[in-house]
């Protein structure tokens, strides 16, 4: 690849995405120490206070032991054997879709991903994707008119420091857990969203419009703030399988909702799950938390997780404001040798708070799928209500499904309900459907869709359709 092409692409990248990428792109050497943290901060052109914040987090991380309590097994990670900053554009540029791996293209087709999205995701040369440029510009204009800030976290640190200083680490403090501390020290990208008072964000915000698919998003940091009386729906991820040389992904997402504000955060995640023998595959260790600070505030997490070799995440809500509401709707699919230990924490602190948890776990192949949830009612949380439903579906007989519900109630006016079911889909069911004229693949999809319907209903419609297709692809060949 010629130097001219590199420059050309980088220049176009600047034009298209609106923020500067450093032309002398280099990666950091392996390992993590204070110098690497300084290097990252310098590459991002961050102010001094941000560097200090990172260094403080790094020093805290050094004192913490790596956690080991989840029901997931993985070889010990050597944190010094990881590259913590990769140059953007390290992925090769392709001339056209013909150069893309045919298996990947087949997956794109099955998922119904539009051609121009396919091109971006595959790293096809940017100038071939003319349409997206105009779409992005219109989108940005509409947001600007409403005063909505939607940019990369790096840009926000430079352009909106007062907001970042106020909220960063307010929901997930750096000392919260090992991976949060690590992320705080080395995060390299992520989204920043601020919705002003009284504004209902005019469209769903999607990372697709901000992320340059070439960047790795290994340690993403996202911060979303909804001021009084505002509303935003944010979509993270995409159904296309995302590969990455970096195995460890430790993102942090913080949501902050003020009085009468609502944040709806939807995720469809399909990180590379490893091959059929469980080799390779991404470790997705994420800390996601929402603070319902204001009265009548509401935060909903909706997720469809089908990828990653290991998924370890508990999107949670702290229901501090009176009458606040927290919701968690999740479908977690594991196949082959994937492992998932995922769930949520609903912490009720204010009065008249409500939380709803609907978790659907589908295990296939030799995978292991665990739900781990905490419902905690504080002693001043009068009249708290929680409803939890955890359903597991086992496809075939070599997979596992586990449930670890924790319920801590410290106020006698609380009402907490928990329901759990387990069901199995085997050859017999498939034959029954076959005998009524329904093909095996359709049969599996019908069963899975029926099982997941409640959660699909909570996803923004476009995402729901993509998610259904994704589920079908993930479970191909899982029965028999």
């Amino acid at each position, binding site marked *: 690849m010629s130097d001219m092409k590199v420059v050309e692409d980088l220049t176009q990248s600047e034009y298209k995405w609106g923020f500067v990428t450093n032309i002398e792109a280099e990666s950091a050497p392996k390992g993590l120490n204070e110098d690497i943290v300084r290097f990252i901060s310098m590459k991002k052109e961050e102010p001094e206070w941000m560097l200090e914040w990172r260094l403080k987090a790094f020093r805290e991380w050094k004192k913490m032991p790596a956690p080991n309590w989840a029901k997931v097994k993985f070889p010990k990670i050597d944190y010094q054997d990881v590259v913590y900053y990769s140059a953007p554009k390290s992925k090769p540029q392709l001339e056209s879709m013909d150069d893309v791996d045919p298996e990947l293209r087949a997956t794109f087709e099955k998922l119904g991903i539009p051609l121009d999205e396919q091109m971006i995701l595959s790293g096809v040369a940017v100038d071939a994707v003319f349409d997206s440029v105009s779409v992005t510009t219109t989108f940005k204009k509409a947001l600007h008119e409403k005063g909505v800030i939607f940019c990369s976290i790096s840009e926000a640190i430079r352009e909106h420091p007062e907001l970042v200083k106020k909220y960063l680490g307010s929901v997930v403090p750096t000392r919260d857990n090992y991976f949060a501390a690590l992320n705080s020290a080395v995060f390299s990208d992520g989204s920043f969203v601020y919705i002003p008072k009284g504004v209902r964000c005019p469209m769903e915000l999607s990372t697709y419009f901000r992320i340059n698919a070439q960047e790795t998003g290994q340690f993403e940091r996202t911060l979303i703030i909804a001021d009084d009386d505002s509303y935003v729906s944010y979509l993270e991820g995409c159904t296309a399988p995302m590969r990455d040389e970096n195995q460890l992904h430790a993102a942090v997402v913080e949501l902050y909702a003020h009085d009468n504000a609502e944040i709806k955060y939807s995720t469809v995640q399909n990180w590379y799950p490893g091959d059929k023998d469980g080799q390779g595959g991404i470790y997705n260790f994420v800390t996601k938390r929402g603070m319902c600070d204001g009265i009548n505030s509401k935060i909903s997490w909706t997720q469809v997780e089908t990828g990653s070799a290991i998924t370890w995440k508990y999107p949670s809500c702290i229901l501090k404001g009176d009458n606040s509401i927290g919701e968690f709707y999740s479908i977690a699919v594991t196949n082959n040798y994937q492992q998932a230990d995922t769930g949520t924490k609903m912490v009720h602190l204010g009065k008249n708070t409500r939380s709803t948890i609907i978790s659907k776990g589908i295990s296939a192949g030799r995978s292991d799928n665990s739900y781990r949830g905490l419902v905690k009612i504080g002693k001043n949380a009068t009249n708290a209500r929680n409803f939890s439903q955890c359903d597991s*579906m086992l496809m075939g007989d070599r997979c596992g499904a586990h449930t670890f519900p924790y319920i801590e109630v410290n106020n006698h006016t609380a009402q907490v309900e928990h329901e759990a*079911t387990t*069901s199995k889909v085997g*050859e*017999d*069911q498939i*034959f*029954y*459907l*076959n*005998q*009524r*004229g*329904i*093909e*095996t693949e*359709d049969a599996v999809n*019908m*069963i*899975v*869709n*029926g*099982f997941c*319907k409640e959660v699909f209903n909570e996803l923004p419609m476009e995402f729901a359709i993509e998610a259904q297709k994704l589920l079908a692809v993930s479970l191909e060949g899982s029965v028999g």
Partner: protein
Amino acid sequence: MIKITDLKASVDGKEILKGVNLEVKAGEVHAIMGPNGSGKSTLANILAGNEAFEITGGSVEYLKKDLLDMSPEDRAREGVFLAFQYPIEIPGITNATFLKTAINEIRKYHGKEEITAKEFMAMIREKGAILDMTDNMISRYVNVGFSGGEKKRNEIMQLLMLDPKLALLDETDSGLDIDALKVVSEGVNRFRNENNAVILVTHYQRLLNYIVPDFVHVLSNGQIIKSGGKELALELEEKGYDWVKTEHLAENPA
């Protein structure tokens, strides 16, 4: 309609069917009776295309096609229906969704238009009434939480809704009380006409009082050893299966 010639089959290496010969024409009802382990259910399941069984010999011609060469879905779409002996539960799919999908798959196969919601509801009400199925059962997941009798009635409900050409009823009467038996039989009798055919697998003569067969066959040790009219069933009731076995051995010394 269907011609089974010298059919041999085994499961887990054990031979169950040892050369079955049977011919069923449109408009006929054939009853297959026999002692436990004779292979009655095996026969029904093999015709439906259950891959748990291995065909080791013989052939089956259905509507001039090679049935054994067709996938279970295709057999169904060509009009083969099996009312299972132990209908299985399918959580997550309602009876309504299930029936509608099945009906449309079959229609699609024959190049017909999909059923409209209105037509579908009308059909459900009409057939449901025959079988005493409540509206509530339609919105329940397939067979989930159904009693044994409800499951068998659900099988016949599907029979009426899908209107196949060849109905294989595998011990539809087992586990049914008299009232359920009458309702189920009524359903089957409403189904039968001169264009379709029924193969009825059963242990007991009692069902055949309600669903009167044209032919009765005795399947023993993997082969049909005696065939006759409906009176044969009464004779079996009186004399038991041993009588037939003995007679067969005498006529066919090993």
